[in-house]
């Protein structure tokens, strides 16, 4: 089947196209060059006057894994307000803060997204993450596997094992857990919490292991580089949410010696201690550090006002934050000498000084970081806000007067503590396309995705130009996934199943000589039963695995 998309205005930053009228041809799921005149076009879409981008990619969103399911179970009252009925082609479910899997897929697709990546796959919980993502229709998916508080790594570091052995363990874990990146959450802090440490600074030692968070970050960042992973080490920093943590974040950037680092939900790590409330914006310093350190990328983790639930691997910080739980119920878990998690419902309020300033800090970071290829649009779903709020966030970035109108309604003391009103910048459509498409595909290391040039998979979103950007991005005219039309006028009309993206760096299998006795002595599962096999993802006939090249090997 040959499909032609005629006359749309393309925003395809990966190909250097910024608002040009061009036709697109699709065959066998991929975009092809203009075919010869003899080839019959079976379906043509007139896209004159429409905005065309590749399908959006969420590079950090909690869509699969145990803590999300804890969040769901914890909040039946949140689901009751947002039931989603079955249709002839879609399954029923529930939405709002932590939607059910099917609803997650439909709602992402209905906003023009075609891929989403779970950033906190615990190795021991990776099966669940993949099973949940396996029940998310339409989207492609993948995960970053969490290391840094696992006892095996901390024992290796304490025993001063060489970098090669660490690299082998990291690569082995990626294979076992089927991952495309490596994530660190509060490096060593989740372990430290199990030893009853309640805080852990960058250079503070774990009370049991002779290891600091900085060492863990350096070692894993080096492993990522030496293994040739495209996605930089994905870092949820120390001291999340702590006033003054801007110093920790700057110190993290300085101390990584130029290695690639992705600082996630950086809004939560950009707080100073100035002002009457001893809470202030560190956004300008953070943006300056990102601007001047080309090895650093970040996603924002914007908060938006309203009820949500925070679900994080950072059991240490989540336990501290439980006093802000709203409603007042929360879950913390220590998990399998591997990691942990904390689930705390939050209600961000515009009349709460701290929440209001958090909102402003996130926007300041978006607007003060110059290079849209190195900053990504996230709310750290569901932690800052549910992903369904992205169109609203896009409008805040693209529409200065709208932003200032909103700014005028937040807590007055917070208004005084932000420079937001003085920032003129408005994101362009091309910059939005970079942040949510081309840049995201590049930073994750997705081959043949996130672009509209021939050879790419035909993940394509078509919008009607509208000065109200929230309206525009809420309801695309068309969304194509692998060349099949899945959404029309903002509603799912066809359901298909995406692939699971992974990388498979090489490693020395002799690492299993150390791992097997460790599993036998200390863990509650045999090493052989721990490793996830490909057929666990593909055997249902819907799932598939796509292996991406390592850096430079493309």
């Amino acid at each position, binding site marked *: 089947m040959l499909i032609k998309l005629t006359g749309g205005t393309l925003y395809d930053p990966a190909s250097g196209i910024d608002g040009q009228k061009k036709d697109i041809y699709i065959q066998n799921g991929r975009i092809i060059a203009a075919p010869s005149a003899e080839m019959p076009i079976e379906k043509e879409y007139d896209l004159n006057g429409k905005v065309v981008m590749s399908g959006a990619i969420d590079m950090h969103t909690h869509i699969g894994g145990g803590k*999300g399911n804890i969040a769901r*179970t914890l909040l039946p009252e949140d689901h*009751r307000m947002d039931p989603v*009925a079955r249709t002839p082609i879609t399954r*029923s479910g529930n939405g709002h803060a932590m939607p059910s899997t099917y609803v997650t897929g439909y709602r992402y697709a209905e906003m023009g997204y075609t891929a989403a990546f779970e950033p906190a796959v615990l190795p021991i919980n990776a099966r669940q993450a993949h*099973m949940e993502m396996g*029940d998310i229709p339409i989207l492609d998916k993948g995960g970053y596997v969490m290391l840094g508080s696992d006892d095996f790594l901390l024992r290796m570091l304490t025993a001063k094992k060489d970098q090669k052995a660490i690299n082998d363990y990291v690569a082995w874990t990626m294979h076992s857990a089927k991952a495309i990146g490596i994530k660190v959450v509060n490096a060593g802090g989740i372990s430290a919490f199990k030893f*009853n440490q309640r805080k852990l600074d960058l250079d503070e030692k774990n009370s049991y292991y002779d290891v600091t968070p900085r060492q863990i970050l350096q070692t894993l960042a080096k492993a990522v580089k030496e293994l040739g992973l495209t996605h930089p080490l994905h870092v949820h920093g120390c001291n999340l949410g702590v006033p003054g943590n801007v110093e920790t974040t700057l110190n993290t950037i300085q101390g990584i010696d130029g290695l690639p680092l992705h600082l996630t939900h950086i809004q939560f790590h950009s707080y100073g201690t100035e002002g009457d409330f001893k809470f202030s914006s560190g956004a300008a310093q953070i943006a300056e550090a990102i601007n001047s350190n080309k090895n650093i990328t970040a996603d924002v983790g914007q908060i938006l006002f309203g009820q949500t639930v925070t679900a994080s691997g950072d059991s240490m910080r989540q336990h501290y934050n439980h006093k802000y739980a709203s409603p007042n119920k929360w879950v913390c878990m220590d998990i399998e000498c591997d990691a942990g998690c904390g689930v705390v419902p939050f209600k961000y309020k515009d009349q709460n000084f701290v929440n209001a300033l958090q909102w402003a800090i996130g926007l300041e970071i978006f607007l003060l970081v110059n290079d849209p290829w190195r900053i990504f649009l996230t709310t750290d779903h569901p932690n800052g806000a549910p992903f369904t709020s992205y169109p609203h966030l896009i409008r805040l970035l693209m529409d200065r007067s709208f932003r200032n109108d909103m700014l005028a309604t937040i807590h007055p003391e917070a208004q005084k503590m932000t420079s937001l009103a003085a920032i003129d910048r408005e994101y362009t459509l091309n910059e939005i396309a970079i942040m949510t498409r081309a840049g995201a595909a590049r930073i994750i290391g997705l081959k043949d995705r996130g672009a509209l040039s021939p050879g790419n998979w035909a993940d394509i979103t078509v919008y009607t130009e509208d000065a109200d950007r929230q309206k525009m991005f809420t309801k695309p005219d068309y969304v194509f996934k692998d060349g099949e039309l899945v959404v029309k006028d903002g509603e799912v009309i066809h359901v298909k199943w995406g692939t699971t993206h992974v990388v498979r760096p090489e490693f020395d299998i002799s690492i299993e000589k150390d791992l097997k006795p460790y599993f036998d002595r200390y863990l509650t599962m045999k090493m052989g039963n721990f490793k996830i096999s490909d057929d666990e993802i593909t055997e249902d006939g819907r799932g598939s695995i796509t292996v991406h090249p390592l850096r430079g090997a493309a």
Partner: protein
Amino acid sequence: MTEIIEVPSPFCGIGTDDLTIQVEGLALKVTANGCAVNTPAFELPITDTQARVAGQQVSLETAISKAADILRNTNQPVFGGCATDVNGMRAILSLADRSGAIVDNLAFNNARRNLLAMQDSGWMNTTLAELKNRCDVLLIVGTDLEGFAPRFFERYLWNEAMFVSDINNREIIYLGKLPAGNASTSPSGRKATLLACDDADLPEVAAVLYALLKGKTLQAQTVAGLAVSDLQTIVDKLKAAQYGVITWGAAALAIEQAELTVQTLCGIVKEINQQGSRCSGFPLGGREGDQTANQVCGWTTGYPARVSFARGYPEYDPYLFETQALLNNAEADALLWVQTFNTNAPPETGLPTIVLGRSGMSFNREPEVFIPVGTPGIDHAGHAYRLDNVVAIRLKKLRDSGLPSTAEVLTAIEQNLQVSPC
């Protein structure tokens, strides 16, 4: 004959995965690391392999077609049991979504004691490997732990630990029910502390523990026959522990106010952490696919496994949608029952009944449709959740019995119903 090693068990709830099993034709024999729960469950022989309609042996296709007919002509079916693997539960939910059924896991009344507490105030829990490597004080409330899982102590307490220098120093305290045997005695002979009381007194005893932890002064010297000073000792030990764990089995708490007792225990755990020591809860369960049902239902609907699709979208009610109540009150008009782990019969009812059961299941009243299905982890591969709710184990296929999986049968029934696929 073949021998399969490192076999994971879906039966014991603790995800034991070191069994060795000999396979000879269809016969299984556990030759290493068996226990009173796992060995008989694995070795249960296959008897019937043929589906039946009204007691007559029929082809699988005929049984599937009859089951679809029954569902087509119902207004409010209930899908009970739900004792299966992840793919089986996925298929139950898919069929229920299409048929407007109520889905209810057979252990939900037990799980409810935990879920009501969790959904009201949350909890701080841990998992097996943390318990194995860290726990130095274990308080067991209202449960015979070794009766629940015969190898629990051997595998997780009297075994090498990363952070406990001498495992013999681990302090085991039973509160309420006492153990049937001596599994809780350490290798060096150190015995557990036993504080017996009636199950019915556990709400009061738990409340006293919480009060003592909060520093309240009690006038009473004894509660439920226990010296308050002994209860104070428990509190002191938990507070002094490096990593205390409080465990309970919701199934064993067959008492009024069980959920309040669970909530009090969870409150004690949180309070100890608040006061500056580490402590975690550890609810027991994981049998007959209960955690599996709740997990899969959780991500598919947002709710644990007592859900109605009658309105076209999932609704959760921990009381209204109980299978037995629906049958008693004539609120359902058909029963689909899934039990792949054992041959226990479904609840008795005069309603049209479809049973997907383990081979050998017998009935007082023959159901309209009986389809013997494979047991996950024996007859087909699959996934099951352990009691600690984090770890899903990969179940192996051990033999070629030809028995279909729950998912295969239910998917075929759904296809037979022939509405558009999604």
